């Protein structure tokens, strides 16, 4: 055991892990955080807390993580390298750990171009790979980036994202290997719709034995409507939505589309369970957190294992 992380324990028990996410509110509304987290209680092993997601200002990830920790649930502290330099990031990591937060997800973050502050300076002092390396060095060597010793180093279970669908496709396995080289423990993937392409990627991952070095959680996002499917297909960079998904949703009435979306998500999980190397699921129900329990149940992932 590298850390006290519940997620690490679930992985080590050999069972499929389940995570979901909670976007902090755009204001000082602690009750919103708690409300969303409570919805997921018992259905997931840990809750990702996003960091100024889509480059929009929200309550800080750290603060929201603390709120969740305080009600006894397990947050995953997301950190993007876009907004802070290495001083700020390292101090936040120590701060989080001192509140008992022990699981992190390291990201580079969406470019400010997409958010509500396109005029902001983007920092990118480090990139996501370098952040993974930094957190691992803090944990395993007990040293800051600058080389000084850390008093009571933070023991973080380190996650990162992977997008099997972005271009160049041939680099996607290599970049995962690079993150593993940097010290990542688990991976949450971009939401998967193109099963065949994901399986090709996983095949590449397994061929190189990378599935033995990292826990891969498949990303699942249920579609609320055919409109959402089209938007994801055409507008979201690095997203691969096959036509049949769009067609399938378009094939049912507007009222039935949400249910069809959930049905698709459940089918996807069922199929992905069979894919070697998949160690869990990361269910991102965007502004639709209340449906996560239903998906988890229908996918046969409920109840969650008791880990203490």
């Amino acid at each position: 055991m590298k850390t006290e992380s519940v997620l690490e324990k679930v992985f080590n028990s050999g069972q499929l892990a389940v995570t979901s996410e909670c976007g902090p509110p755009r204001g000082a509304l602690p009750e919103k955080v708690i409300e969303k987290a409570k919805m997921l209680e018992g259905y997931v092993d840990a809750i990702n807390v996003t960091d100024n997601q889509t480059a929009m200002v929200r309550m800080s990830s750290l603060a929201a993580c603390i709120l969740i920790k305080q009600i006894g649930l397990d947050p995953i502290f997301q950190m993007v390298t876009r907004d802070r330099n290495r001083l700020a990031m390292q101090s936040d990591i120590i701060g989080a750990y001192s509140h008992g937060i022990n699981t992190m997800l390291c990201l580079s973050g969406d470019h400010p171009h997409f958010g509500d502050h396109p005029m902001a300076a983007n920092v990118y002092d480090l990139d996501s790979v370098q952040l993974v390396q930094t957190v691992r060095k803090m944990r395993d060597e007990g040293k800051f980036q600058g080389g000084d010793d850390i008093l009571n180093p933070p023991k973080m279970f380190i996650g990162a994202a992977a997008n099997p669908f972005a271009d160049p496709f041939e680099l996607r396995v290599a970049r995962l290997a690079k993150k593993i080289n940097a010290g990542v423990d688990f991976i949450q993937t971009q939401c998967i719709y193109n099963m065949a392409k994901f399986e090709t990627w996983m095949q590449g991952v397994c061929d190189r034995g990378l599935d033995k070095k990292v826990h891969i959680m498949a990303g699942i996002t249920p579609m609320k409507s055919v409109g959402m499917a089209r938007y994801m297909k055409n507008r979201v960079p690095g997203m691969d939505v096959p036509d049949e998904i769009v067609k399938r949703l378009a094939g049912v009435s507007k009222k039935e589309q949400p249910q069809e979306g959930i049905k698709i998500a459940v089918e996807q999980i069922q199929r992905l369970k069979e894919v070697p190397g998949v160690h869990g699921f990361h269910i991102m129900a965007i502004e639709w957190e209340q449906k996560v329990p239903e998906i988890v149940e229908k996918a046969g992932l409920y109840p969650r294992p008791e880990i203490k």
Partner: protein
Amino acid sequence: MITAERKPMEEIIESVRPYNRILLVGCNECVTVCAAGGRKEVGILSSALQMAFMQEGKTLDIKELTLERQCDPEYVEELVTVIDQADAVLSMACGCGVQEVARRYKDKPVYPALNTLFMGAAERQGVWAERCQGCGDCILGLTGGICPVARCSKRLLNGPCGGSTAGKCEISQDVDCVWQLIWDRMKALGIENRYEEVMTAKDWRTSRDGGPRKIIREDLV
């Protein structure tokens, strides 16, 4: 080369509004090459300013002069004979030139007519693109001769991020994903195996983060 483009006319017009006698100074170096502030552009701006003010019933006394290089004191010295005939200087040089004129002629207001943009290369006639950020610690040897610091929107040293689509950056279809270019080049050079080496966090001290920089060549001083 340093690239620049002319400021909006409105901003230039407002900056010279209080004055009657303008010394309009071009530069025959980078800004000529990128067609922003050479003799030709000086002539065009002069005529445009004149027309802008004539509509208001005012004629300006504009003297046009293009120096070989506005960032060298010896060339800037050439203005000494005409500077007294001007109420203000409007410079069509890059920021370096504007500052050099301001430094030399301390009691003369100096206004920039250009926005200085970046260090770049000509992709073809009339198209210039950013190539270098002057980070002070060149890594081009590691990235197949293509700079991620200047050309990746996120400055990623371990790219590409998940937004790379069909060789283009997530921020715009018009921007190449530099990591796609780097990867293609690594393949062409047969050094793909180097890709998985983690490029560690960069030391930004050599860049502007370390404070304004200066080169002193003792042997030449």
